[in-house]
């Protein structure tokens, strides 16, 4: 079983912010700007509650000897003009004979269930939301609290978001009486900006800190070819900064027929890993009731400082988790949405049927398939079928 660590201690390292014309004014200026923003935000309200909507999905992942399937459900309904309630149920039914499993253990099956409930409250141009989620599988429990606040400014041209999450994981390895814990903390800051009538810009930052038992109790490192238990550091700090932009194309000023999107994310952590993620997408309406999308995603990362395919000597920290090795992945995906004709569906205003498929190719630079002695690579098929309803 893959057990990924989730969060840690305190944030000590931040991205450099770009120089600004006002930077030299230092802390004397920002209270004045804050007052100005509050005044501006009291103008025309553009903030709305999330849509009343339900999605019911079947999902499937098949790749590298691992099959994960299951249903997922998301329900959201407003209560009055200022409150929206949401609930999410998600299931992973796992059958794993991954390369880690078949070279050091036996294939297994497992099931993960996740519940999440949330409430959003709208007050003026401010939307506040809290949610609680709980995830359970045979050897892993995780509980998370999320808090998000978003504020519209400049008559809705700018939206600033802030978020905080705190989580607690409990791990009890199979055939062991040991219990391990992980504490995690997430800090989010985001900005959405209308640049022109057809261009949107988004910038987001997230710092994640985690502490506790971060390694996988079932995975082994290699020292001169011999398998030894992995040992990870007890803390893990990471930061990610993403920029995304969307451009719409239309033949008039009131409707849009197609759009292109580009996302870039830079990531780094105190385990020595840095990564780059690029997403390009094209969407368009066609044949009256269809919305189609084609997207390409590139991902590349460097290896953790304590990763080795085969250590020459025993070290304090040792990992041979392929997710901590140097690798890249290329994904190509399509998505099609069919909007049902308007009609009487009881209390439902409109519905859509959706199909999405992604193929992901993983190529590892320093993780060897010890059965063949060759560098490991594999492809994965990711399928989603879901129905959406608005009411």
């Amino acid at each position, binding site marked *: 079983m893959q057990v990924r660590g989730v969060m840690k201690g305190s944030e000590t390292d931040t991205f450099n912010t770009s120089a600004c014309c006002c930077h030299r004014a230092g802390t004397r200026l920002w209270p004045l700007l804050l007052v100005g923003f509050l005044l501006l935000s009291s103008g025309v309200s553009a903030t709305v509650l999330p849509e009343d909507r339900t999605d019911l999905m079947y999902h499937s992942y098949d790749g590298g000897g691992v099959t994960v399937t299951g249903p997922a459900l998301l329900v959201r309904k407003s209560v009055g003009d200022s409150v929206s309630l949401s609930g999410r149920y998600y299931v992973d039914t796992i059958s794993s004979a991954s390369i880690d499993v078949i070279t050091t253990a036996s294939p297994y099956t497992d099931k993960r269930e996740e519940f999440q409930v949330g409430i959003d409250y709208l007050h003026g141009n401010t939307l506040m939301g809290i949610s609680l989620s709980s995830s359970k599988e045979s050897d892993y429990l995780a509980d998370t609290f999320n808090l998000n606040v978003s504020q519209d400014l400049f008559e809705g041209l700018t939206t*600033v978001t802030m978020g905080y999450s705190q989580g607690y994981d409990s791990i009890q390895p199979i055939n062991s009486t040991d219990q391990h814990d992980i504490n995690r903390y997430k800090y989010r800051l985001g900005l959405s900006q209308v640049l022109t009538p057809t261009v949107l810009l988004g910038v987001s930052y997230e710092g994640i800190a985690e502490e506790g038992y971060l390694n996988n109790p079932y995975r082994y490192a290699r020292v001169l070819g011999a398998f030894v238990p992995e040992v990870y550091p007890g803390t893990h700090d990471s930061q990610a900064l993403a920029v995304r932009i969307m451009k719409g194309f239309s033949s008039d000023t009131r*409707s849009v027929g197609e759009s292109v999107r580009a996302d870039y994310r830079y990531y780094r952590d105190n385990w020595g890993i840095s990564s780059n993620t690029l997403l390009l997408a094209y969407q368009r309406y066609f044949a009256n009731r269809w919305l189609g999308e084609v997207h390409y995603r590139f991902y590349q990362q460097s290896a953790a400082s304590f990763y080795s395919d085969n250590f020459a000597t025993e070290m304090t920290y040792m990992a041979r988790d392929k997710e901590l090795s140097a690798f890249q992945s290329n994904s190509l995906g399509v998505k099609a949405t069919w909007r049902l004709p308007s009609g009487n569906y009881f209390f439902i205003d409109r519905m859509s049927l959706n199909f999405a498929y992604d193929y992901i190719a993983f190529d590892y630079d320093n993780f060897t398939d010890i059965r063949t002695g060759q560098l490991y690579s594999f492809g994965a098929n990711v399928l989603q079928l879901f129905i959406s309803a608005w009411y």
Partner: protein
Amino acid sequence: MSALLCTLALMAGCAGVKSYEREILADPIMSFTRDPLSDTYLNHVYDVREAARGATTTDGGGCGCN
């Protein structure tokens, strides 16, 4: 903080998009999170197989295991 607020002020000042000019921006095809459940799922698929995490269009939560 002051740098961020200054940047926001400059960007908003440059934008100058009137309310009646935002019909295109309200179309689902212009949303970064058109299908929230689908986005959450796909982010989860990548999250458990890559070291990078965070700064996606969906909130995290639950466990990172799979």
